[in-house]
């Protein structure tokens, strides 16, 4: 009797040996599967995400370039609930991250700053909270950054003024605080990009108010 339960516990401990890694998929497919595991997907839009395939390029809502590297993730408006995870930062070649109009919760992972080819970050109309990570200032290719209509808090990271390619930015309808940067691409964004953040205090007045004034 004792030995039978011993066997059970040994079996559970040695479970790792049963998992044959011979079909270990590529890292982008793994990252996407790790992401999928966080999500509730009542509409089954992720049904085609089959990790046994050699790469994720035939999955729906995933687009690859000619070298089978993931460049688009299109899950906008898909009735998905869940969180964003650090694994998204492993999609090294991603250009378009389109996760808008869902129910993504939790924080924006700082690992998204590793997406050095990212052109468009569309996370608008979700339930994201926490601060905008400073690491997003590493996204030197970024042209579009739409984080509007979430529950983001904290001040706008000053590091974002170094995103010289940024053309469109929308932080409206959040709970951001402090002042709005005026340098770099921020000199071109209209006030509408920042509206409905109750504690955001207008453009920064250099020397007069600190960037996190009112936070």
């Amino acid at each position, binding site marked *: 009797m*004792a030995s039978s339960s011993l066997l059970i*516990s040994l079996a*559970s401990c*040695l479970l790792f*040996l049963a998992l044959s890694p011979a079909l*270990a998929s590529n890292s982008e497919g793994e990252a996407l599967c790790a992401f999928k595991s966080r999500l509730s997907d009542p509409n089954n839009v992720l049904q085609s995400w089959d990790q046994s395939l050699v790469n994720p390029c035939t999955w729906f809502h995933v687009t690859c370039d000619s070298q089978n590297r993931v460049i688009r993730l299109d899950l*906008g408006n898909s009735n998905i609930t869940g969180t964003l995870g650090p694994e998204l930062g492993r999609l090294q070649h991603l250009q378009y991250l389109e996760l808008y109009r869902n129910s993504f919760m939790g924080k924006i992972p700082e690992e998204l700053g590793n997406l050095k080819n990212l052109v468009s970050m569309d996370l608008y109309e979700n339930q994201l909270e926490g601060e905008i990570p400073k690491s997003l200032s590493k996204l030197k290719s970024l042209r*579009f950054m739409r984080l509007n209509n979430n529950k983001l808090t904290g001040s706008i990271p000053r590091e974002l003024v170094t995103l010289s390619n940024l*053309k469109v930015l929308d932080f409206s309808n959040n709970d951001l605080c402090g002042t709005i940067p005026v340098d770099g691409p921020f000199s071109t964004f209209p006030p509408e990009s920042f509206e409905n953040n109750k504690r955001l205090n207008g453009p920064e007045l250099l020397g007069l108010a600190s960037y996190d004034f009112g936070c």
Partner: protein
Amino acid sequence: MLYGEIPPTLGNCTSLETLGLAYCRLNGTIPPQLGNLRQLKLLTLQNNSLSGPIPDQLAQCTRIQVISLNDNMLEGEIPSFIGEFSALKTLNLANNYLKGEIPADIGNVRSLNHLYLFGNRLTGNIPYELNQLSQLQILDASSNNLSGPMNISPDHLISLEFLVISSNFLQGEIPKDFCSRNSSLHNLFLAGNQLTGTINGLLSCTSLQSLDLSNNSLTGSIPHAIDQLTELVNLALHNNSLTGPIPHQIGNLTNLEILSLYHNHLTDSIPVEIGKLKRLALLFLYENQMSGTIPEELTNCTSLQEVDFFGNHFSGTIPDQIGNLKNLIVLQLRENDLSGPIPPSLGYCNSLQQLALADNSLTGSLPDTFGFLTELNLITLYNNSLAGDLPRSLLGLKNLSIINLSHNKFSGTVEPLTGSDLLTVFDLTNNSFSGQIPLELFKSRNLSRIRLGHNQLTGPIPSQVGLLHQLVSLDLSDNDLTGEMPLSLSNCKGLTHLLLNGNRLSGYIPSWVFRDLVSLGELDLSSNNFSGDIPKEIGNCSALIKLSLYNNKLTGPIPVEITKLTLLNVLNLQKNKLSGPVPPEIQQCKKLYELRLSENLLTGPIPSELSSLTELQVILDLSYNDLSGQIPDTLGNLLKLERLNLSFNQLQGALPDSLVRLTSLHRLNLSSNLLQGEIPLALSSFPQNSFSGNNLCGVPMGPCSDPPVSKGKHLSKAEVEGIIVAIVLVSAIVCVALMYIMARIWSNWREVSVSTSDCEESNSKRWVGNGDKIQASKYRKLGPTSTRVGSSEEKHSWGSDTSVLRMKNDAAC
């Protein structure tokens, strides 16, 4: 089998020494009356459906030796009275719903041999008092929520053989000199915790046979003195952050059967001493940063069954003598930098079931000897530079299920790969295979994926494809296939991907495609010779996400039914002969991010409803059609649009102001239309060829002939009125003055010559006529900009001859 509740009356059997009701279907709670069984030595109720708490009354069973309540649904906490059971040898509470902390009092049960607590919801630290259990041989508290440091010390637990605390939240480092010199610890499982630091503290556990520290956060290198653990059979250190090389002393662990080091940061090459591990069966080094060549000595490890080096930087060739590994079942070398040919001896590994050499730089052709790999069910060689014809001997591989030779340079016929009728995945994408698609392929009725794209296959699509009812994906793109789509394909109702683009297929696009293949998510028939109309049945394929019919000879209208495809992300109908309007109902395809209708014969206006497609992002391409009318003002709603191409149409009028809201736009082509007026300032950063071939003016094109009319917009109503009054007054004065002067001249002329009177009449007619002409040409030039702006023209046209002439005419009337 017994079922129902345990009768409380059992408590009356006060002489009972053994109560064994295990493996039944008992439910309900453990009756407190069992506490009356004062003589009880054995209580075994495991594997039932008992619920509720462990009753306090059991505290009276002080002679108990064995308690097995595992695999029930017991709740509540572990009662601390267990600490008073001085004869207890075995306590098994595993796999229940017990919560709370492990009571420190258990440390008083000095007789305890076996303690099983795994699979509960226990929290808190492991009580240090457990170290008093000098008789304890087995402690298994895995799969709980225990936290804190590794309080257990085999240094004190001198009888301990099995210590299993995997899958908890233990933190901190493994204590230095974890085991005493006389330790009898055989098995140590601490996998799936949050342990940090190095593994050096375990080198004192010289009796260890199995060590599993996987899935922690351990750092440092594998110590050279690892060979102190001479008894070691299983060593699992995977999923940590170990660095440095595998020490050559590993070769002294001659009992080793399992070595699992995957997913660490190990570097350097495999020590040649690995060849001394004659019993080694599993060698997992995948996902490290190891390099160097795979040592020939590895082929001395003749017990090897599974070798996985995936995702390292191993270079050089695959060892020539790999064929010595007669027991090898899995060889996974994917994603390394291996080069050279595949050694023919590999064909002698005749136990091999899975062979994965993909993502390397292998060259040469497949050896004939591969025909001996009769057990093989998976072969993946994609992304290499393998070439040549496939050996006929491959026809002998009757167990193959998954074949992926994609992205190589193989040539000749694919027929040698069709020996098995168990195929499920057949991927030969991007090679130089030629000949026809062999009919033998369709013997494998369980095929779910056929991918033969980017080859030089000829002939028709065999109608036997319709036998494959499991087919999910059929990719025959970019070959030289001819003929029509076989009707039998309509049997493949589970198809989600159908890619036939880039062939010479002809005939109509059959309506059954859309009637029967309703699971299709991607359909690409582009670059073929398909003709006729797009079937109206297209609306049935409501799962379509990507639809491309680009570059065919399709005629007729865009069927309005296409607008039922509400999941479409990409619609490409470019380069056909489609006519009629762009259906306004396309606004229902709300998820479109790419829409290409260019190079057709489309007519009518650009529907303003396009503005509902607010997800349009990659491109909206309507170029090279016969679209007319104005650019709808609503197009400015496409806030995410990055490319807009409306060139080579008959579009007229001015650019709508709303276009300046297209802030995401970075490519714009409006060239070769009939557009007029001034380019809004916000669009002036686009190059000239964005606008050329129109009558547009302003930056980046030439200046508008007027002073910029847009300034007028900033004038207040009062100012405008003032200016108008001034203009009218001045014009009137000028007219009066002119008339006076003319009258004088006229009378002078009459005085000088009487014979010129005819000329004067025609002269004055010509003036008026000229005036009309100039006026008309001016309107053509300025177009609606000036008309739209209205009164501003009068304001700023002081120097303009047209207005003066008109004023003059007015005044003259």
